[in-house]
């Protein structure tokens, strides 16, 4: 016995024991486990910054547009009170294309025809990186939106801020049956609303009485369900390119289906059409403000404050913002 144990070290083959190997593998596993979430969060942060950068560009383009025309672009232009495709003319995103160095694309769009006209479709089908946030899911390919002709068009990730919702059933202040010059409605207007009905005109930095640093201009909208409910950057339908900050917190969740679910809007699906939400971690929703600054708001924001930030003429106190 003594002899055998003395010989053991010589018999043992060169290399690691199973335990040693397992320990090394475990340590590597733990290290990778620690590293992977860090890498993922760095990638998510990079995507968020890219989205903020797009918003910054859009904000600058708005300012350049204002310098040239002494007015903000129209949120959308509507030729009549029906929702027929022929009534939609143009939206804010197409209007600022020359200020985003897309002069040629802008020139190929004919606003004398309607938005979804065959001749304008190539513009609507253009995937434009500045209008797309890399964190937005499935937005790098064309989809067929609801309430549009049966044609796939390019999604976007941003919506213009139109103002308040006052009533039920699509009761957005600028929406056909509601668009009026009534004082209560005018108090709900935002910087980029429907123009052409109810005698509403484009806004200017002068009409943003609440102050450009207290007014949201353009914000993010993503949804991980229902690609037909995405934002569509070049569509002049108000549900595709305009949003309305709303009181209810389910309108700040990036999931159209859930927004209309039994726990949330529960059948008031019209609230989800004009929602703002993003797929960034922590429920951050980014906006460019009238002064050109980009701010991150939380999905946990006070809903009334959020509504107030979307109006230009509400006269609200937004202390702490």
């Amino acid at each position, binding site marked *: 016995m003594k002899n055998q144990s003395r010989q053991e070290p010589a018999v043992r083959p060169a290399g690691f024991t199973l335990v040693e190997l397992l320990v090394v593998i475990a340590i590597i596993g733990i290290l990778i486990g620690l590293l992977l979430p860090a890498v993922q969060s760095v990638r998510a942060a990079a995507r968020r910054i890219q989205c903020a950068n797009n918003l910054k560009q859009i904000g600058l383009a708005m300012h350049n547009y204002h310098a040239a025309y002494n007015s903000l672009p129209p949120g959308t232009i509507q030729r009549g009170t029906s*929702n027929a495709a022929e009534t939609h003319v143009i939206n804010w995103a197409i209007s600022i294309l020359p200020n985003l160095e897309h002069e040629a694309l802008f020139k190929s769009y004919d606003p004398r025809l309607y938005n979804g006209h065959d001749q304008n479709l190539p513009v609507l089908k253009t995937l434009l990186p500045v209008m797309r946030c890399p964190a937005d899911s499935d937005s790098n390919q064309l989809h067929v939106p*609801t*309430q549009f002709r049966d044609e796939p068009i390019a999604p976007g990730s941003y919506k213009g801020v139109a103002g308040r*919702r*006052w*009533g*039920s*059933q*699509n*009761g957005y202040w600028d929406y056909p049956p509601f668009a009026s010059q009534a004082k209560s409605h005018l108090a709900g207007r935002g910087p980029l609303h429907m123009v052409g009905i109810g005698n509403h005109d484009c806004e200017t930095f002068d009409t943003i009485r609440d102050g450009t640093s207290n007014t949201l201009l353009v914000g993010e909208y993503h949804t991980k369900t229902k690609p037909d409910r995405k934002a569509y950057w070049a569509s002049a339908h108000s*549900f595709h390119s305009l949003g309305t900050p709303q*009181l*209810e*917190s*389910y309108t700040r*969740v990036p999931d159209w289906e859930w927004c209309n679910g039994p*726990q*949330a809007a*529960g*059948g*008031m*699906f*019209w609230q989800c059409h004009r929602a703002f939400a993003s797929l960034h971690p*922590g429920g951050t929703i980014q906006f460019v403000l009238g002064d050109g600054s980009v701010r991150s*708001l*939380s*999905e*946990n*924001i*006070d*809903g*009334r*404050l959020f509504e107030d930030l979307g109006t230009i003429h509400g006269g609200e106190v937004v*202390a*702490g*913002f």
Partner: protein
Amino acid sequence: MTRLLLTLALLVAAGCGGESYPLAQVSGTVTLDGKPLPEARVFFEPKRKGENINSGFGSTATTNEQGRFQLTSLGGDSGAVIGEHYVLIRTIRGEEGPNGQVVIVSREKLPSRYHDQSTLIFTVPPDGTEQADFALTSDP
């Protein structure tokens, strides 16, 4: 080893927590002109305190035949964020038609002062309540 893992888990949990909004159990009754109001949707949206612009996620519920409701947070847990809330109560419900038009399934029975222009405020106490009662009237 277990202790090490536990410590790691604790560190991660502590590092990732943002603002938290503690919940309390809330139930109550909705009546319209003194009668219980069934099938009404109740929405609680937290109101901010002071200069903090964030206030947490809302809670919802639907009243039963007796007009009773119990709030569930939109985050999935039972209850509502402690503190003041904007309250909305509606009975309208719709469905989407083939071209996106609104098909009304249930009409709005309540005046707009209870929903679209609501001024209702309710304070959820730290230990919750079973008396979140709303006596509504249908006069305009």
